[in-house]
């Protein structure tokens, strides 16, 4: 609870400080704010339960998810540097909105009462609508914002209708209530409950851009300014999965037989669409967007598995995916700045004049492709090795593994362009020290997660 409070306060404070402070200072300050809020998780202080009203539970899962989300957000903050240079940019607002949206993230990761979920989703979504459209002179950004808004609120409608139906069936809003209802009526679950569950699930699937509810994602990711795309495809997605996992895999696990096929098929479709369409992209940014859909598919496999330890798998995978994505977006940001293009062709020969970023790109792509030496591989391993325990999901595991080959194909394309081809038009890209720090941290972590994944379980055990 304390981190949420702090984030809100810092957000407000940021708005005011924005009048006085320069852009780099704001950036640094925001990093500091987020870091403090994250550290506060470790302060052994609990709000009185009666004040909490059972809205949120700061359990291991929620705290871990919140922490890594905050950490990823921390890594993304320096990326705003380029965007902040636009003449209409309002850095203080961006930072504050990000801080506010992080409140939503923490709420989604730790909710117990679906109202907290709903509020969290909305805080996050509304912030994202705004941030997506923040490149105000760019028609693509605006279009993305509108599409996101319309489809997002449409999905929210389904989410709410689901919640309402669940309420009609169970008379409550808490996850514990749902679990209890299932336990008490295991043989005569009301059809209304089923319907509500499905609609709630659909609402959340939309938020995490799982096929067939993924249509918004490529366009929105494509249109949004790069740092916010990075934010959306990592932090927002992670929060969505945390919520989905809590709702479906934890509280509804008694109805596993009911929902697993749906999720499995959605996962399959995400993998298919994400991978196959990404393979046809010429724009690096859009490629990353589709790759996000395919990773949603992998994460959904973990959600569907719903076994003991799946939470850890989910966490690990999201973290490694987010790290790699952030790196990819950093590279994209640099290339876009240098060449003015977000296409794959803009990357041609990029690594020759930008050795560091070339290396970063390689690490990131390898991790996203799930090749060894990187966290992406361990993440995939964890997910698949859990999923294989559920015998009937073997086909999904097989499909997931096999579709990685398509992933390998399109992830290697940027690397191949950067290293093996000629024709880079931009010069050497200046990387500010903040960015350098963030990138270095993410690279290190990606590699460390790949080679010594023990580190992550140490972190997890420490919470």
């Amino acid at each position, binding site marked *: 609870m304390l981190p949420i409070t702090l984030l809100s306060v810092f957000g407000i404070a940021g708005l005011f400080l924005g009048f006085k402070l320069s852009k780099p200072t704001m950036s640094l300050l925001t990093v500091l704010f987020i870091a403090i809020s994250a550290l506060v998780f470790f302060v052994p202080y609990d709000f009185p339960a009666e004040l909490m009203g059972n809205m949120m539970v700061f359990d291991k899962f929620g705290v871990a998810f919140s922490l890594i989300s905050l950490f990823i957000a921390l890594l993304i903050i320096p990326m705003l540097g380029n965007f902040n240079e636009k003449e209409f940019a309002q850095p203080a607002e961006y930072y504050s909105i990000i801080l506010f949206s992080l409140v939503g993230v923490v709420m989604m990761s730790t909710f117990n009462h679906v109202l907290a979920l709903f509020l969290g989703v909305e805080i996050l979504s509304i912030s994202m609508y705004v941030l997506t459209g923040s490149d105000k002179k760019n028609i693509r950004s605006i279009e993305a914002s509108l599409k996101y808004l*319309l*489809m997002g609120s449409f999905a929210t409608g389904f989410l709410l209708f689901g919640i309402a139906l669940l309420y009609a069936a169970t008379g409550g809003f808490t996850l514990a209530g749902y679990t209890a209802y299932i336990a008490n009526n295991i043989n005569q679950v009301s*059809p209304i409950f089923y319907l509500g569950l499905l*609609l709630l699930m659909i609402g959340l699937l939309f938020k995490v851009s799982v*096929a067939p509810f993924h249509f918004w994602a490529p*366009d929105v990711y494509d249109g949004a300014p790069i740092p916010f795309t990075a934010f959306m495809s990592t932090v927002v997605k992670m929060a969505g999965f945390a919520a989905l996992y809590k709702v479906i895999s934890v509280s509804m696990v008694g109805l596993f037989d009911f*929902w697993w096929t749906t999720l499995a098929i959605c996962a399959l479709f995400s993998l298919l669409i994400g991978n*196959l*369409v990404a393979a*046809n992209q010429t724009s690096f940014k859009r490629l990353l967007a589709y790759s996000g859909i395919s990773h949603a598919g992998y994460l959904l496999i973990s959600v569907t598995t719903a076994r003991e330890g799946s939470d850890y798998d989910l966490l690990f995978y999201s973290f490694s995916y987010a790290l790699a994505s952030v790196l990819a977006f950093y590279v994209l940001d640099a290339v876009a700045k240098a060449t003015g293009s977000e296409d794959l062709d803009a990357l041609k020969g990029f690594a020759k004049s930008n050795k560091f970023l070339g290396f970063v790109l390689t690490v990131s792509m390898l991790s996203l492709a799930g090749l060894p030496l990187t966290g992406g591989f361990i993440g995939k391993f964890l997910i698949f090795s859990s999923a294989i325990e559920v015998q009937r999901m073997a086909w999904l595991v097989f499909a997931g593994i096999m579709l990685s080959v398509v992933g390998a194909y399109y992830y290697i394309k940027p690397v191949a362009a950067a290293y093996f081809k000629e024709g880079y038009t931009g010069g050497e890209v200046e990387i500010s020290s903040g960015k350098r720090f963030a990138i270095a941290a993410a690279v290190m972590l990606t590699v460390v997660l790949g080679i010594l994944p023990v580190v992550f379980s140490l972190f997890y055990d420490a919470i």
Partner: protein
Amino acid sequence: MSVKILASLIPLLPFLGFIINGLGFRTIGKSLAATIGVSASVLSFGLSVWLFAAMTGSGVTTQEIHLFNWITTENTNISFSFLIDHLTLLFLLVVTGVGSLIHLYSAGYMHDDEGFGKFFSFLNLFLAAMLLLVMGNNFLVMFIGWEGVGLCSYLLIGFWNKNTAYNNAARKAFVMNRIGDLGFLLGIFLIYITFHSIDYNTVFSQALAGSPGEGVMVAITLLLFVGAIGKSAQVPLYTWLPDAMAGPTPVSALIHAATMVTAGIYMVIRANVLFSLAPFTLEFIGIVGLVTALLGASIGLLQNDIKKVLAYSTVSQLGYMFLALGVGAFTSSYFHVMTHAFFKALLFLGAGSVIHGMSGEQDIRFMGGLKSKMPITFITFLIATIAIAGIPPFSGFFSKDEILAQVFVHSPVMWGLAVVGSLMTSFYMFRLLFLTFFGTFRGTHQQAHHLHESPLSMTLPLLVLAVLSAAGGLINFPQLFGGGQWLAHFLAPVLGGEAHVAHLDHSTEWMLMGISTVGALASMGVAYSLYISKKQVPASDAVEKGMLSRLVYNKYYVDEIYDTLIVKPLSSLGSLISEFIDTYLVDGIVQLAGGLTIWVGRQMRYLQAGNTGFYVFSMVLGILIILTFNLLF
């Protein structure tokens, strides 16, 4: 020094010669290279003689020398060991003896060649490999030598490697040999599987003790014989041998007449126990041998290249040897191997001497009247011709006659055919002799001017070989003439399988001898009348020939048939694979799979048309499907 070391030195010395000359090529002077090469072979000849003397003196018939384990796995153990017995000793003597002479000859013959040192090194390597072949105590060591001599044959045929035709000939020889080698290798596998060993002693004693069944024996021996077919140039794998004449003449003499090509015979004699247990194979060998003998001889009738004639003659003579093997006359076969080694080496060296004198000319149509210019060559060549024609009292008569006698016992029909072959032999050899040495010189003026007798290093071996060719028959002098058949007795311990050879009564034997001798003389007469009396010279290639003679002149078109039936189809298959099947079919499927995946992705991509209405509609559609699916089913 122990026998082990000395025996090992026999192949090792030439091998060292090979290393020294091979690595020092172009840095070692010619005389030194010759010294090294010749002395290596002479030394190993000396050692062989010593070994021969030591073993016959002490009465030891066999001696095994274990050197080291070569290939060992959990259930296979193949050692690198030597077996010295009487058969080996005889081959050692022939190989090193003839080999030394030819080394000596080469020192003169190759003197002006820039690859002099290389030549000696290869020659030494050949000697080493050939010695390994005959010294091994198991089939695989024989196989080492077997392939080793094949390699040397390749290297030496293509010795003048700027000439593409020579290179092709070399390649052809190696590849054809390899076809046989595969059979040999498979035979070795089958032997191993049957007897769990490939040591001669173990295999033979087991085969004698309890035969594993005739079928298996036939299979083993047929496979081994395939190896022999390749190495010893029998039908159908004989075509490489005439082409092999591309190599320098000493090579033809040593490898393609005296030693390497007889390796097949050595192998059959060595494995006589196995072959005797497979009568079918023996019959088959006999037929193959007979066919080869006739085919080779008939082609030889009309060839004009001095070396080609000799080459076909070799093919034909090898056929006789196999014929002998086929009727179970292993001693006779070996006897012929030995005499053939003498007189055929002599013929080749003589031919080499002629070619040397003629500055490289090999076509007998452009020779003639050389007997006065090259007397030593002429006389030795004459001796060899008489020997090969089977006219008494030279060695060829005895060895060939023994074979014919044994064949007669086996089957008079085969004998009849064999005699026909022998008549042809006599004819083409005398044709060769007459065209080359008699009459008037038909070459260019320049050649005539240059014509000379060869140097001593070349004529000395000729003389030695002439003596051997003349007197070689003594070694197995038939009982008929009061001889003791020393060779037969000497080889008896080795030939476990020859027990059944029948003996003819003397009158039949006399008759057979008479027929073949008279026939040979008659053929000589025909040749004399044609080429001396009528002074005919074979027509030039441009002249139209009768169908039969054209067929024979073009070697029955066997090369062309092989080319169209085997080489061309395989090589077009190769082109087809590498240019079409691999890129378009096999890889096509791969590319198609990849392409299809991408294509599907591209189609899916069109769903993402940027149309919010459609997006929302798809979402609702998705919801509908999920709801229907979950709530109805």
